[in-house]
């Protein structure tokens, strides 16, 4: 069938965002080069960027789409290591880690909704480091390493506070690596409006100890609850969590949906539930 030719006018008149140049490179190197333009911005699934740009809170001069870079896509298991390409969608992670790492599959399968999961990517999620995002907790608890076009950054150093990461200007998250634990669970308590975590806890048990990563709660973004890790490394049980003092609520997010004290309380409850479900 002949293609319908539609008028020459580029603008259809009701665009909500500022205009920008658009590039869709097919290799990491080309993307890095393209991002050298001033005010250029990496664009992966767009599930965070599109609403932000519609509110005109971001105004890149150029948008560099990562969606055509095949070397950034896919899920691979090498021994006890899970490799997820930075441009891999939540839906793909959900499907392809179901056997190798069910807790991550379950985390991915509960991000947003099916439409968000078919576009949003792990690279975008960790690069954005929303204080209520799911992947940062999963990555941090899973001894994650963030692979970029130029280096590898341990998750413990990568996440540096609300929306802050170790990424440099123009640096691209090309993959995220995780160590598959003996057991793990992600306990997510949703904020009733956004359905992001109000507080969520990822617990991962390894031979050499337990990791507990918390998202949604702290004003400084995702963090490891070290007291719980210590207690659980000695005694991996819900009772061990019961014995702990509730974390301090003063550094926790207080908003319409819950006070800092409430979130601190949820940290404990969700940790307990994650452990019980492991």
């Amino acid at each position, binding site marked *: *069938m*002949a*293609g*319908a*030719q*539609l*008028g*020459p*006018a*580029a*603008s*259809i*008149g*009701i*665009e*909500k*965002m*500022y*205009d*920008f*140049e*658009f590039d*869709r490179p097919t290799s990491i190197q080309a993307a890095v080069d393209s991002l050298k333009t001033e005010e250029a911005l990496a664009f992966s699934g*767009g*599930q965070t960027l*599109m*609403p932000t*740009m*519609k*509110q005109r809170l971001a105004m890149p001069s150029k*948008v560099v*789409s990562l*969606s055509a870079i095949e070397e950034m896509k896919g899920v691979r298991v090498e021994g006890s290591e899970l490799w997820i390409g930075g441009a891999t969608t939540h*839906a793909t992670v959900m499907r392809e880690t179901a056997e190798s790492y069910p807790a991550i599959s379950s985390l991915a399968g509960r991000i*947003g*909704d*099916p*439409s*968000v999961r*078919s*576009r949003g990517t792990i690279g975008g999620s960790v690069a954005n480091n929303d204080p209520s995002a799911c992947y940062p907790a999963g990555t941090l608890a899973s001894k994650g390493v963030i692979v970029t076009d130029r280096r590898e950054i341990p998750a413990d150093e990568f996440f540096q506070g609300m929306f802050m990461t170790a990424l440099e200007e123009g640096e691209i998250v090309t993959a995220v690596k995780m160590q598959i634990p003996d057991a793990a669970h992600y306990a997510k308590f949703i904020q009733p409006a*956004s*359905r992001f975590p109000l507080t969520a806890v990822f617990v991962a048990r390894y031979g050499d100890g337990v990791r507990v990563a918390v998202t949604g709660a702290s004003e400084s973004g995702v963090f490891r609850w070290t007291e719980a890790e210590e207690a659980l490394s000695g005694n991996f049980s819900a009772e061990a969590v019961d014995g702990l003092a509730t974390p301090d609520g003063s550094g926790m997010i207080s908003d319409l949906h819950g006070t800092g004290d409430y979130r601190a309380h949820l940290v404990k409850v969700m940790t307990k539930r994650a452990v019980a479900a492991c």
Partner: protein
Amino acid sequence: MKVDMKVNGRAVSGEVEGRTLLVDFIRQTLRLTGTHVGCDTSQCGACTIHMNGEPVKSCSVLAVECEGAEITTIEGMANADGSLSTMQAAFQEHHGLQCGFCTPGMVMAATALLKENPSPSEAEIRHHLEGNICRCTGYHNIIKAVQAASGQDVQPVAAE
């Protein structure tokens, strides 16, 4: 920028800006107004369409990202003879719509579910439709419509 894609089986090409949203391209350029816009934070799902077989929110995809993609909108859902698809017919049969504004997105999302999971439970249907907000129906009859479309037993509407 020129973009070529297939929409409801028909090849189309059009000039767009980088910032043109897929939903605006569909509604304004192609004049397929069945796809709706209900929010600006990517949450309501009124704009749900299929892109290469997967459900996506067309308000959160750039038109230029759809180069070479296969797009299906609500206008492409009916059977070849023009009759309503099984899912569309089930929505009518079970009164799964009132004002009809969320409906195209709802039908697109529900159709995608059955492709993946031909016989979903009530809980699975609800989980799958979490990103499609309906203000009219309370979801009750939508759930029933999806159950019916998947060939599962549903109580007849007015006899509960």
